[in-house]
């Protein structure tokens, strides 16, 4: 893909991504936040495809936009709570300071990244980011963390049941 085409595709996904991420933060109702987050995950999957991370892009749609967000929506529907504030939302001093800190973090990273100069992308083979290539890395170099992940998921399942169940 040529430089300009990649730049355009990047912008096509990046601008709505930032917009929907802002939507998560500013939306008043949690449902609107959740739907914005689903949109953000889809746009992020598009960015991943531009980065040739095909497997991770698929997992992003299946696991994040599918499984995790369905769990979120399920809990929102289940709990049926009121919106946090119905009137004008007032920001406390700590919250304003926190937002300023977040902007500071972003500014620092952006400045540091721009100071690095252009980091050119290396030429990669045709199979970069495919299931075969990532699977080979996952099952050779990262086999121990991979197995630890299965244990982590088991602990999470048991923990979720124990915490949410009224009586064991």
């Amino acid at each position: 893909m040529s430089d300009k085409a990649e730049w355009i595709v990047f912008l096509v996904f990046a601008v709505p991504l930032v917009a929907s991420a802002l939507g998560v933060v500013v939306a008043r109702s949690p449902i609107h936040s959740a739907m914005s987050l689903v949109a953000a995950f889809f746009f992020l999957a598009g960015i991943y495809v531009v980065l040739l991370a095909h497997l991770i892009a698929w997992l992003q749609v299946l696991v994040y936009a599918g499984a995790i967000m369905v769990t979120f929506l399920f809990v929102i529907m289940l709990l049926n709570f009121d919106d946090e504030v119905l009137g004008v939302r007032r920001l406390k001093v700590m919250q304003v300071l926190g937002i300023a800190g977040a902007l500071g973090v972003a500014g620092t990273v952006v400045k540091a990244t721009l100071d690095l100069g252009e980091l050119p992308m290396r030429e990669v083979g045709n199979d970069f980011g495919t299931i075969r290539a990532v699977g080979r890395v996952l099952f050779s170099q990262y086999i121990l963390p991979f197995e630890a992940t299965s244990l982590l998921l088991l602990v999470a399942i048991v923990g979720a049941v124990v915490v949410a169940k009224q009586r064991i």
Partner: protein
Amino acid sequence: MAPANWYVILAAILFAIGLAGVVSRRNALVVFMCIELMLNAANLTFLAFARQTGNLGGHAIAFFVMAVAAAEAAVGLAIVIAVFRTRGTLHVDEVNLLKS
């Protein structure tokens, strides 16, 4: 090829939006969603540098981050349900038993 800087800058913006949400929103569920946003920003950085260096290790790490995010969402939402059941609120400022 576009330089990796743009992807890292996008990830920084995404991370800052998530961080701002975590510190400014008071609904525990929205705070969780903002944490997911921050995890995704970290993933984007991993994938950008995996592409830049041509090393697939970043993809493996992104996979693990996703697994951790799924586990975190499962346990976190269970805690949200338990807190809502006992205290009837999700406002993070009102869940302050340890503070008083």
